[in-house]
C-alpha cells in the first residue's frame, strides 16, 4: 500500500479549519457566557436600563375662599432631568443646555458626570424655555435627557392671608405652615405607582407601561375667609401700623352666628409665591400664636359673670376712688373718677377700680368658672397648627391675693386674639359660645363633602348678653372707644391697653404697650365681631392723643374694617334691631 504524500494544500486546509474551529469555539464560549453563565446578570442589567418603577404624583388639592376663588392651587411645571449613565458627552451637553435653562455650566458638568441614574438639570421651567431646550436636545441628538412634570404651588392672591394659608416645601410640596400643614393629609392625596419601559433616549415606550396603583388626587379645602374682607382688613391694619409705627398687629373678623372666620390678618406677612424675600419670623400667624394680656377687654367677662350670677345689676353703684390697694398691689385708673359709678359706667369708662370691686363681690371661684367657660386657657379652634392655649391658671393656683383682681382687669391672664374674638362673639350671639373655625368644608376627589359643624355651648343667658351689649354700646357712644364709631351702623366694643411684658427681662415695659379694640357690629343686631391688636404702637395723633392706647390706635382700624365688612356682607345701614 503506497503512503499518501503530504501536500502543502492540506496544511492550508488544516490552518483554515483550525481558525474556523477557534472562531466557532470563541463564539460558542461567548454564547455560553451570555446565555448561560452570565445570563441572569445580563438580563437584569438590560431590564434595569429599560424598565423603571415610577411614582405617579397625586395632584395636591386646591384651597378656596368662601366664594370658590382659588387661594392656593397646584399647577404642573416642567423640569429637565438627565440620566448621567446615558449622557455620552457631558461637556458638550452642558455647553448646549446651560445657557438655555440658565444654570451654571461647570456645576451642570459635575452633575452630568455623576454616578447616579438621575439628576436635575433645571427645574420650574417656563414653557418657552422647555421648547427651546427640547429643540436643542433633538437637533444635537443628545441622549439621556427628558422632561418630567413637577408640581408648583401657586398663591394667586400673593401675600393675602398668607399666614393663614401657609406654605409648602419646595422640594416635595409638603405643607409646613398654616392650613397647608394642618390639612396636609387631606390636601396631599395618595401617590400611585407604575412600571414604565423607556427607550435608549429615555422616552417612554408606548404600550409598555403597567399601572400598579392609580394616584388619588388630594381633597379641596374651602375656607371661611372672604377675599374682599380679608383685603380690607389687611390694608386697614397696615395703614394703622404705618400711622402708629407699631411692630405688627392682628385682625380677626368673625361671623358671630356660625363662628366662621371671615378674615384673619397677621402683619408683617409674606408672599408664599416669592420665597426670595421670605423672613421666617413672618411665617407665624400672630392671631393664634401670640399670647397677650388682654387688659380691659377682659373686663367684659368679669362683669358678665357678675351679672349672670346676680351679684350686680347694670345700675348697681360702686364707690370708685382713683386707687385701690389689694395686698402689695395698687391698682389705679387713668384720669379722675366720679366718687360713685354704676356697673354700666364702670364698663363705659373702663374703670380698673370699679371692675376689681365687682370681681371681689363675685369671688375667685365663680370668676374662674366663667373665664373657663368663655374658652380661655385652651385652643379656641381645631383648625390651626400651633395655636396657643393662652394662659389661665386654675383657681386653686390663685394663691396671691391680687390674682383675682388682676385677672378681672386682664392682667395675669394670657389670651390670643382668636380667644378674645370668641369671648365677644359669645356676648354678640346671645350668650352661646360657637367654635371659631376657618375650614368651611373639605371636598374629596370623589366629590364627597365634609362640612364643618362647630361646637356650641351656652355660657351666659341671652338677657345677660344683651345687657352687656348695651354697656358695650355706651363704650363707643360716650366712653373710651368713641373712635370706633361708624356713621351708618351702631357699634359697641371695648378698648384695652396693657403694658408689654418683656420675656427677656421678666418685667413690664415702661414704654411699649399692646393696644386692643374688640367690637361688635351692628351692636343692636350683631353680625360680626372684629378684633384689632397692635404691638407697640407709639406717637401722637391730632389733638395730642397718645397712640399707645387701644382707643386711639386700634379703635379707628376697627371702624374702617367693620364699616367695609358690613357693606361687603350687604347689611343695610338703616338696620334697626330690638336689642
Amino acid at each position, binding site marked *: 500500500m503506497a503512503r499518501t504524500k503530504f501536500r502543502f494544500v492540506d496544511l492550508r486546509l488544516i490552518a483554515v479549519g483550525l481558525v474556523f474551529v477557534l472562531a466557532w469555539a470563541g463564539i460558542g464560549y461567548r454564547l455560553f457566557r451570555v446565555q448561560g453563565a452570565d445570563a441572569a446578570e445580563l438580563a437584569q442589567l438590560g431590564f434595569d436600563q429599560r424598565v423603571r418603577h415610577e411614582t405617579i404624583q397625586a395632584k395636591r388639592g386646591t384651597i378656596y375662599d368662601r366664594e370658590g376663588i382659588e387661594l392656593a392651587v397646584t399647577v404642573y411645571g416642567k423640569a429637565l432631568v438627565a440620566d448621567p449613565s446615558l449622557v455620552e458627552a457631558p461637556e458638550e451637553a452642558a455647553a448646549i443646555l446651560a445657557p438655555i435653562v440658565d444654570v451654571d455650566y461647570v456645576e451642570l458638568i459635575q452633575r452630568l458626570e455623576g454616578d447616579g441614574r438621575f439628576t436635575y438639570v433645571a427645574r420650574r421651567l417656563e414653557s418657552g424655555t422647555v421648547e427651546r431646550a427640547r429643540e436643542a436636545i433633538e437637533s444635537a441628538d443628545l441622549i439621556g435627557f427628558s422632561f418630567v412634570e413637577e408640581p408648583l404651588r401657586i398663591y394667586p392672591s400673593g401675600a393675602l392671608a398668607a399666614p393663614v394659608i401657609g406654605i409648602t416645601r419646595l422640594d416635595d410640596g409638603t405643607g409646613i405652615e398654616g392650613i397647608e400643614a394642618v390639612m396636609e393629609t387631606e390636601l396631599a392625596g395618595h401617590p400611585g405607582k407604575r412600571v414604565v419601559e423607556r427607550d435608549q433616549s429615555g422616552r417612554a415606550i*408606548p404600550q409598555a407601561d403597567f399601572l400598579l396603583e392609580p394616584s388619588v388626587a388630594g381633597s379641596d379645602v374651602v375656607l371661611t375667609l372672604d*377675599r374682599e374682607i380679608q383685603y380690607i382688613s389687611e390694608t386697614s391694619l397696615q395703614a394703622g401700623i404705618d400711622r402708629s409705627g407699631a411692630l405688627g398687629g392682628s385682625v380677626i373678623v368673625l361671623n358671630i352666628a356660625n363662628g366662621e372666620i371671615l378674615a384673619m390678618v397677621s402683619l408683617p406677612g409674606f408672599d408664599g409665591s416669592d420665597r426670595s424675600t421670605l423672613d421666617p419670623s413672618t411665617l407665624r400667624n400672630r392671631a393664634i400664636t401670640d399670647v397677650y394680656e388682654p387688659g380691659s377687654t377682659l373686663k367684659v367677662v368679669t362683669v358678665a359673670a357678675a351679672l349672670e350670677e346676680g351679684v350686680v345689676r347694670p345700675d348697681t353703684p360702686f364707690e370708685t376712688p382713683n386707687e385701690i390697694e389689694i395686698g402689695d398691689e395698687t391698682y389705679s385708673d387713668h384720669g379722675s373718677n366720679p366718687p360713685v359709678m354704676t356697673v354700666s359706667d364702670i364698663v363705659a369708662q373702663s374703670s380698673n377700680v370699679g371692675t376689681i370691686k365687682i370681681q371681689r363681690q363675685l369671688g375667685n371661684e365663680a370668676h374662674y368658672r366663667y373665664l373657663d367657660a368663655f374658652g380661655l386657657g385652651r385652643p379656641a379652634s381645631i383648625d390651626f397648627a400651633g395655636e396657643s392655649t393662652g394662659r389661665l391658671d386654675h383657681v386653686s393656683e390663685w394663691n396671691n391675693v391680687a390674682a383675682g383682681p388682676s385677672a378681672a382687669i386682664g392682667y395675669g391672664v394670657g389670651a390670643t386674639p382668636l380667644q378674645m374674638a370668641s369671648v365677644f362673639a359669645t356676648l354678640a350671639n346671645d350668650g352661646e359660645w360657637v367654635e371659631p373655625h376657618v375650614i368651611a*368644608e373639605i371636598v374629596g376627589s370623589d366629590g364627597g363633602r365634609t*362640612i364643618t359643624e362647630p361646637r356650641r355651648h351656652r355660657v351666659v343667658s341671652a338677657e345677660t348678653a344683651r345687657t352687656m351689649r348695651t354697656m358695650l354700646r355706651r363704650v363707643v357712644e360716650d366712653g373710651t372707644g368713641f373712635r370706633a364709631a361708624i356713621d351708618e351702623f351702631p357699634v359697641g366694643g371695648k378698648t384695652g391697653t396693657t403694658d408689654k411684658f418683656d420675656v427677656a427681662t421678666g418685667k413690664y415695659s415702661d414704654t411699649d404697650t399692646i393696644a386692643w379694640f374688640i367690637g361688635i357690629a351692628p351692636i343692636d343686631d350683631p353680625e360680626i365681631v372684629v378684633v384689632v391688636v397692635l404691638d407697640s404702637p407709639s406717637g401722637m395723633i391730632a389733638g395730642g392723643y397718645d397712640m399707645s392706647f387701644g382707643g386711639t390706635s386700634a379703635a379707628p382700624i376697627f371702624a374702617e374694617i367693620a364699616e367695609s365688612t358690613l357693606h361687603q*356682607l350687604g347689611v343695610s345701614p338703616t*338696620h334697626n334691631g330690638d336689642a
Partner: protein
Amino acid sequence: MTAGALPRSTARRVGAREQTRRRPVVRPLVIFTIAVILTFFAVIYSRISLDRTAFELQRLDREIAAEQEIHWDLRVDYARLQAPALITQRAAALGLVYPEDRYTIEISGMADTVGGPEDRWMDLRALFVEQP
C-alpha cells in the same frame, strides 16, 4: 385460488393513476403556505397598526395634558386678575377713588347677609335643578 400478477402494462397504468390522484394534495399545501405568509404579514401589520395607535394615543394624552395645563394656567391667571390688591392698583392708576358721599339703596329681599356652607353653592344647585 391464488391471484396471478398483473401484466406489466396494467401495473404501469395503475401507478400513473395513483400519481394522478396524489397531484391535488399540493394545492392545500400551497394555500396553507400562502395563508401562513399572509397571517405572518397580517400579524406584522396589526402590530404596526397597534403601535401607530399607541403613538396616537400617546400624542392625544400629551395634548390632553397640555390642555389641562392651559386650563389651570388660565384659572390661576383668572384668580390673579381677581386679586383685590391688583384691582385696587389698577383702579388707582385709572384715577378711580372711593366716593365721599355714599347713598344706600335697599332692595327688598337682598339684605340676607353671611350664609353658611350650604348657601354658598345655592346658585350652582339652582342651575342643576333647572337642568332636565
